[in-house]
């Protein structure tokens, strides 16, 4: 089967929407075909598979497809198409180690379809266009940011009027964003990074001000804090947003996404009308919680490592292993931050310290 035909099949699945379950057999068949395609056309991924002794000949179920850890996206071009066909590269934000993970795309069609389906269902479930206030830079200023692309596309397809981007490549002024929010005359979608919301909360707190955004407004926040603001628990962040912006908790949605994936996960608070921390898994995605020591499925309710299989990643690698801790729950999964890591159990210098201090 050709790549185009595979893309069409995945697009058809996405086109059915987030409420149309994908039959396990259909997912398995599509996943195995995609795996074979990617194995054949992506040399770096083929090396990864060889290291674990697996190939399309030996893999009989989608759960056996070798997952590429996020670190692999920093070391090699994990793309199943020639470099010349690249139309976009999304990159992870910087880290102490310097290298950034990259998702190479030869088409934005699947990425866009997936994001519109999930964003629309979870942030604008009424399907009534709303003005967008975005606490992130526009895609034109951050072309390698998947987040900016997502907001840009969502605002233009699901929003009303010209979206307002409050952040530029040079930074942002929370006071100007507050002015924008004060000027809202009706419900809006206020979306952005978690740390930008912290800045907003802090700016309002410093001014001794609380906003009461128009009824029907919803907030979507995503990402970690990455040293760009004080760190808050998700609960504290949402409480802060509720207090600072006057948006009820059930209208504040966290999105969990990764640069390396073509799809994202949302809490379904808006759809259910009550606050929820459960991340919903789109039908074209499967999320497994595995024991990082054995890679076996964690027992129900146990905390483990999240591994995603995303059919929308047709041009890259569909199985991606994270370093995030999660727990399978009814209707999806919960994200519990990073897996508990290396406390000081030795006297060897940590790699990060070395890279920061001596490289």
């Amino acid at each position, binding site marked *: 089967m050709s790549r185009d035909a595979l893309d069409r099949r995945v697009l058809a699945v996405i086109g059915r929407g987030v409420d149309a379950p994908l039959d396990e057999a259909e997912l398995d068949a599509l996943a195995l075909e995609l795996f074979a395609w990617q194995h054949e056309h992506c040399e770096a991924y083929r090396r990864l598979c060889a*290291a674990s002794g697996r190939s399309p000949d030996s893999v009989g179920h989608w759960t056996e497809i070798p997952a590429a850890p996020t670190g692999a996206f920093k070391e090699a071009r994990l793309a199943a198409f020639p470099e010349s066909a690249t139309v976009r590269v999304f990159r992870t934000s910087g880290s102490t180690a310097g290298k950034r993970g990259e998702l190479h795309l030869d088409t934005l069609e699947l990425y866009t379809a997936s994001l519109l389906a999930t964003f629309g269902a979870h942030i604008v479930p009424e399907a009534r266009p709303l003005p967008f206030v975005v606490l992130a830079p526009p895609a034109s200023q951050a072309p390698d940011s998947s987040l900016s692309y997502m907001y840009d596309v969502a605002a233009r397809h699901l929003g009303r009027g010209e979206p307002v981007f409050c952040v530029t490549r040079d930074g942002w002024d929370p006071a100007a964003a507050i002015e924008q929010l004060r000027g809202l005359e009706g419900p809006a979608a206020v979306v952005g990074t978690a740390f930008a919301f912290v800045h907003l909360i802090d700016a309002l707190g410093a001014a001794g001000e609380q906003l009461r955004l128009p009824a029907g407004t919803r907030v979507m926040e995503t990402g970690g804090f990455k040293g760009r603001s004080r760190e808050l628990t998700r609960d504290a962040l949402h409480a802060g947003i509720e207090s600072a912006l006057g948006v009820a908790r059930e209208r504040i949605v966290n999105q969990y996404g990764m640069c390396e994936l073509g799809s994202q996960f949302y809490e379904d608070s808006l759809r259910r009308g009550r606050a929820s921390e459960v991340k919903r898994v789109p039908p074209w995605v499967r999320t497994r919680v595995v024991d990082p020591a054995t890679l076996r499925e964690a027992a129900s309710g146990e905390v483990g490592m999240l591994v995603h299989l995303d059919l929308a990643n047709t041009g890259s690698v569909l199985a991606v292993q994270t*370093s995030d801790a999660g727990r399978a729950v009814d209707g999806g999964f919960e994200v519990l931050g990073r897996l508990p890591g290396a406390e000081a159990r030795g006297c060897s*210098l940590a790699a990060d*310290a*070395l890279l920061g201090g001596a490289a």
Partner: protein
Amino acid sequence: MKRLRAAAEYIDGARAAEALARTFELWREPTSPWRERLARLHGGFSPRVVDAGVRLGLEHWTLEVMRELRGRELRGDHVAPGVTAVWLAGSIPTASFAALALPLLAGSAVAAHPASADGAGPALFLESLRSVDPDVGACISLDAGPEVLEQVDAVVAAGSDESVRVVRERVPPGIPFAAHPHKLSLAVIGTQIDVPGAVEALAQDICLWDGRGCLSPAWVLAVETPGRRAAHIAEKLAEALDRLASRLPCGPMTAGEHAALRDRRGAAAVREGVELHASGDANDWTVVLDPGPERPAPGGLRFVPVVPVGSVRELVEFCARLHPHLSTIGHAGLGGRAPGLLEGLEAGGGSRLCLLGRMQLPPLDWRHDGVEPLRSLLRLVDVEDEHD
């Protein structure tokens, strides 16, 4: 503090040396109940690693060595500390044993702050010392808090740069202070040795303490030859680690450590030119032949990057980029004072060269981080001639 000072008045370094020698003998015995208890209680490593690490590590910690050390470093006029604060770090029991024992040899009592990762090692060591000589044992306390830093006569602090800095800030000026920040070591294999012999010794260095220590080889530099010797070394090292995995099994790892190892394996596997050897789906060990050009991140937890080097110059350059974080270079097949080894050690800020197989077994009297272990605690005294 008063109790410690009082206890220290009744003993001296010579008596402490005798007590320590007998204590270390207890720990070295073929079926030492102390080793058995520590292996059972430690929890940070597999019992077999604790057993072997302690047995081998204490092999040469004898009365003779301690007497020589005292004679060598306690010369001339000096004032020994009454009480030394010792900030322990990490989870390696023999490192804690040495840190507690050395001030005693200088005639000082010890107010120790145990590391959170190893409560059992210092406690059992102290119990064994008290069983040999209660008076010497009374010279150690294991419950020191930050307040003692302002009351003691010398301080030895191990830990991360940040931990050492925090301790140092609490110590009044003029108090002798020996810092042992976290460091890294590496192994070098030259061409003048059979690969199987070298990798057997190296595998032990990797497996003892699971690559968590500052003496664990974070890289293996293999002097390359036209016959792809580095690749051969990587392959044979993998086989040696596999054989050793049953005798010295890896200890428990956190979920984050497992995830990090999987991430590193995957990141290595996708790179062109990298050869990966691993213990199947388990995280027991990983060997990665990484020809560069970038220096791979340091290994640990039995993840070992093997880096081919073409010349002594490359070895020295590699070490220089680690400055000042290098501790030890373990070597084989080069000759003990081969060109490059000392130069590399100097360039990286290291202080110890040893043969492979000995990396985890430093002598009690080694000059850890280039510091004389007893003399660094002393206040040296000048008595000037009285005549004009």
